[in-house]
């Protein structure tokens, strides 16, 4: 179901839990589907011994992909017109992520109304792992 512009106001929020206790296997799944086989995401030995990180960590694009799910659940299928993010902290196996979209504005051009959203995804410590924006057509 698409959103109705007339029902929305600046400051409205929509939140979802994106993942609880992120598993390494999901990183393998994402590597296989996306084609990004960077060992930093799936190869614990390389990542700890060569790259010197405490463990493998999630593809930024996995966090963006899961956040996209929150957005499409909110705005409806095929409604997004823009989605952009900055990755601010790494996401690790075991992390639980929550994501929130906040209405930052509404604009109407001709027959089309667009809702602008601020998007923020945080881990269980409340640290922002990804932040950005999205825009979507509403009714």
């Amino acid at each position, binding site marked *: 179901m698409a959103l109705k512009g007339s029902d929305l106001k600046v400051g409205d929020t929509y939140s979802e839990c994106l993942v609880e206790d992120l598993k390494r296997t999901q990183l393998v799944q994402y590597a296989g589907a996306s084609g990004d086989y960077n*060992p930093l995401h799936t190869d614990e030995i390389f990542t700890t011994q060569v790259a010197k990180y405490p463990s493998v960590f999630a593809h930024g*694009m996995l966090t963006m992909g899961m956040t996209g799910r929150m957005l499409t659940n909110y705005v409806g299928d095929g409604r997004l017109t823009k989605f952009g*993010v900055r990755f601010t902290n790494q996401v690790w196996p075991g992390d639980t992520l929550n994501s929130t979209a906040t209405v930052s504005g509404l604009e109407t051009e001709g027959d089309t109304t667009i809702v602008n959203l601020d998007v923020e995804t945080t881990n269980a410590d409340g640290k922002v792992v990804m932040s950005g924006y999205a825009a979507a057509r509403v009714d």
Partner: protein
Amino acid sequence: MAVDRFPVEASHIMMFARSIGDANEIYYSDDYAKGTEPGKIIAPPTFAQSSAQFDPDYFLRPKVGEDWFGSGGSPTGVKPKKEKSGGGGGGGGGLHAEQHFEYHRHISPGDVLTATNGPGKTWEKESKRAGKLVFSETVTEYRDQNGELVITARGVGVRTERPVEQ
């Protein structure tokens, strides 16, 4: 990434949706999708990134007959390069700093896309957590089988001087 031919396929969309934990039936079922506003299966918003699968030279995929820098019998299959900057924190060509998509229309199975890269900026920044950061931007235009622009993507990668402090 530049790609000559990126065929959008239903099974790839299904696997991609599974990998991001998205159970929305519009990514799995033709019958369900017919009853939705788009009227057919569409790809999730970040799916275009999986065009990497169709880039023959994509450097983050092991290739037949070539060394791979991930672990096997030893922690890496490639001798580390002693570069002064770059790669230190990334190990595999740096980290992803930003990603932006603009959707002109949503893509579906049956679309056959091309991806071309335009010029992008590069810049540097000092950071406390990872030393010198070198950012590079790539703007990618995805066009469909009719030459119509469907997605404009802008990615920013960052090479760190050393691993990001936790």
